[in-house]
C-alpha cells in the first residue's frame, strides 16, 4: 500500500476547499450569469471571496462578539468596542458536519452553524458567543457549541411579544447582556458611545431603506440576489467599509435609474420573498427565482429586511431610554415565527406586496425549520384572502434537488405572467 503516492488532505483543508468551491460557484454565477451587472457590487463579491476563498481575517485588532440570531443588539456591541459577527451559516459543507451532531430532521441553518463551530474553521474566530433563546433548536444548540470549548452565554428571549410583561422581561435580558459584555470587555457602557453606535447603525439602516426605494421602480435596477449579498455582508463586514461600499452602490443605482438600466426582463413578475433566511452561499431558491425571469423586489427574512427595517426610536438620549428603545426594536418589531401569534408578519408581507407592486410571494421554509413550516398555513390562508398568489417551497442546503424545485418555481412564474396578461 505504501507504494501509492498521494496526499491525504486534513479534514480542515478539505472543508475549507469545499466551502471555497461553494462560495466561488455562487459568486461567479452572480458575476457572469445576469445581464447589466453593477460594477460597485464587485466590492461585495470580492469581500465574500476574500473571506471564504482566501481565508482573510477582517477584524484581527478587535474583540469579536459572536451572535447566534439577530436579537443580540449590535448597538451595544459597537458601543463596547467589539465587533458583532453573526454566525448564522449557509454552507452545505458545514451542514454536513453538523448533521453528525444534531438530529437528522433538524434545521440546516442550525446544523450548519453548529458544524461551523465544530470544524473551528473561522477567519474571524469569535472570542465570546451570545445566544438568544429564540427557536428551540438554536436554544439547545448552545450546549453543543459550548462543548467544543467556546465561551457562550444564553440571553433569555420571550416567545410572546404582546404583553407588557414580555417587554419588561426582554428589557431585563438586554441589560443583563450589556452587563455581561461590559464585564468581558472590561469597559463601561457610556451615553456617548451608545448614542454613537445607535446613530451609526441607524445610518446603515437608512442606506438600506434608500436601496429598497430603487426596487419600487418599474424598471428594477438591482437583483434581489445582489441585495441579499449586501445585507448578508452586514453579518461580518467592517461597518465603515460596508457603509462606504453601499453609498457607492446607491450612487450607481441613481445613475442606472436615470438611464433606465434594468436587470429584469420586459415581463418579469415581481416577487416578495419570505420565510427561512437565505444566507450566503445558500441562495438556492432566490437563484432559481431570478434565473426563471422573475425579480425579487422585496423580502421579509431575518438575513435581510428584518435586520434593517425598524430603527431604534429614542425619545431622550439618556442611557436608560436608549437601552429600552434598543430592546423594543429587537422584540416588538421582530416578525420571526417563533412567537405564539404573528399577525405582524402577515401584515408586513401584505404591505410589502402593495408597496413594491409585487405579483406574487415565494415562501420558502427549510425542512426542519418547524416554526416557518407551521406558519405556512396561516400565511397562505391570509394571502388567499387578499388574492395574492403565493407558492410554498420546502428546501434544504443540499446542492441537488434543483430540477424539481425549478419546475415548480417556473410554473408559478409562468402563472404570474399569465395573470398579468389577463389583467391587461
Amino acid at each position, binding site marked *: 500500500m505504501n507504494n501509492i503516492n498521494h496526499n491525504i488532505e486534513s479534514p480542515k483543508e478539505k472543508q475549507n476547499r469545499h466551502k471555497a468551491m461553494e462560495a466561488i460557484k455562487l459568486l461567479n454565477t452572480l458575476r457572469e450569469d445576469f445581464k447589466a451587472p453593477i460594477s460597485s457590487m464587485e466590492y461585495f463579491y470580492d469581500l465574500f471571496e476574500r473571506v471564504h476563498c482566501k481565508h482573510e481575517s477582517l477584524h484581527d485588532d478587535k474583540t469579536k462578539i459572536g451572535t447566534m440570531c439577530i436579537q443580540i443588539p449590535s448597538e451595544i456591541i459597537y458601543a463596547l468596542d467589539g465587533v458583532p459577527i453573526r454566525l448564522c451559516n449557509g454552507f452545505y459543507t458545514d451542514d454536513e458536519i453538523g448533521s453528525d451532531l444534531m438530529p437528522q430532521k433538524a434545521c440546516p441553518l442550525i446544523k450548519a452553524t453548529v458544524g461551523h463551530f465544530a470544524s473551528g474553521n473561522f477567519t474571524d474566530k469569535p472570542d465570546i458567543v451570545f445566544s438568544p433563546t429564540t427557536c428551540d433548536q438554536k436554544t439547545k444548540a448552545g450546549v453543543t457549541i459550548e462543548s467544543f470549548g467556546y465561551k457562550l452565554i444564553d440571553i433569555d428571549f420571550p416567545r410572546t411579544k404582546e404583553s407588557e410583561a414580555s417587554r419588561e422581561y426582554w428589557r431585563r435580558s438586554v441589560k443583563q447582556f450589556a452587563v455581561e459584555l461590559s464585564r468581558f470587555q472590561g469597559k463601561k457602557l457610556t451615553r456617548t458611545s451608545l448614542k454613537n453606535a445607535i446613530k451609526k447603525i441607524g445610518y446603515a439602516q437608512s442606506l438600506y431603506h434608500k436601496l429598497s426605494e430603487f426596487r419600487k421602480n418599474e424598471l428594477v435596477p438591482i437583483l434581489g440576489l445582489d441585495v441579499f449579498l449586501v445585507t448578508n455582508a452586514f453579518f461580518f463586514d467592517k461597518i465603515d467599509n460596508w457603509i462606504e461600499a453601499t453609498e457607492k452602490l446607491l450612487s450607481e443605482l441613481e445613475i442606472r435609474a436615470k438611464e433606465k438600466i434594468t436587470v429584469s426582463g420586459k415581463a418579469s413578475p415581481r416577487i416578495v420573498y419570505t420565510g427561512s433566511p437565505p444566507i450566503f452561499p445558500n441562495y438556492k431558491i432566490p437563484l432559481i427565482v431570478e434565473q426563471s425571469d422573475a425579480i425579487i423586489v422585496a423580502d421579509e427574512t431575518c438575513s435581510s429586511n428584518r435586520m434593517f427595517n425598524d430603527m431604534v426610536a429614542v425619545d431622550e438620549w439618556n442611557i436608560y431610554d436608549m437601552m429600552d428603545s434598543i430592546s423594543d426594536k429587537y422584540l416588538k418589531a421582530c416578525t420571526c415565527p417563533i412567537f405564539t401569534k404573528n399577525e405582524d408578519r402577515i401584515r408586513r408581507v401584505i404591505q410589502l406586496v402593495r408597496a413594491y407592486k409585487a405579483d406574487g410571494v415565494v415562501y420558502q421554509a427549510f425542512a426542519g425549520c418547524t416554526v416557518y413550516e407551521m406558519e405556512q398555513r396561516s400565511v397562505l390562508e391570509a394571502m388567499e384572502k387578499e388574492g395574492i398568489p403565493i407558492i410554498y417551497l420546502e428546501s434544504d442546503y443540499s446542492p441537488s434537488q434543483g430540477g*424539481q424545485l425549478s*419546475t415548480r418555481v417556473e410554473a408559478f412564474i*409562468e402563472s404570474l405572467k399569465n*395573470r398579468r396578461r*389577463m389583467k391587461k
Partner: protein
Amino acid sequence: MNYFVGIDIGSTAIKITVTDEHKRLVGFKINASGSMFYKYAKETLQSLLDELHISQDDIAYTVATGYGRKLFKEADENISEITANAIGAQEAAREYGEIKTIINIGGQDSKAISLDSEGNVVNFAMNDRCAAGTGKFLDVVAMNLEIGVDELSDYHFKSTGTPLSISSTCAVFAESEIIGLLGSNHSVEDIVSGVHYSIAKRIVKLVKRVGIKENVYFDGGPALNAGLVHAIENELGKKIFVPEYPQITTSFGAAVLACDAFKNMPEVEREF
C-alpha cells in the same frame, strides 16, 4: 405546410408530438430517456419526422418541456411541464368539456393542477421528493410480482377480496411489504389492487390540496392502467377523463403552445 413540435423530456420517457397549424395531432413518438437525454431526444425527433415524411424545414416552431427541457437547445422556447400539461389537457379534452383539475402521474413525480375558467394554472401541488406512488413504483411492484406492467390492470379487476392495505408507497419499502404479503399467502390480484388503492389515496390527498373541481383529467403513462383509474375514481368519488394517449398530453401541450407562439410572432421574424 407548417408543423409544430412539442418535446417533453421526462425522467423516464421522451415524448415528442407533432401538430399541424390547427393544433391537430399529426403524430407522436415515445422513447426511453435513458442516460443521454439530449441525444435520444434528437434521435427520437428525427425518426418521428422520417415516419411522418416531414422535413426539418417544415417545422415552424419547437417548444421543449419536462425535466430535460433546458438540454434541448434547438428549441425556440422552453416551458415548465406544469404549464404545458395544462394547455395540452384543455386542448385534448376540448370535445369532452372544460377541464378544471388535472392529475398527472409521471415516472418520478406526481402532480395535481387546478385551472381557472380561462384555463390558467391557479394552483398546483407536487410530490417530488421520491418515486413514491409514481410510475417507477408500479414498475417495481410488477417486477416483484413477476408480471408485466401492462398486466396490472387485468389483475386489479380479478381481485375478489378487499384490497389489501399497502402502507408504504415508497418503492424501496413497498418491496419488503409485498414480500411479506406474499409470504402470508395473499393473491397477486389482491396485492395489485391494494397497490392501486394506496397510490390512489396518495394522489387524492395531493388533489385535495389544490381543490377538486370538475372535470378531472388524468394523464401520464400510469393513466393507461385502467385498474389504477378505477381506484382513483373510487377514492375521488368522481368520474375522471382519460385521454386516448395519456402519455403525450404534456408534449402535445408544448406543441399547441408552439402554434400559439408562432401565430403571435411578428411577420418579419417568421421568415427566419
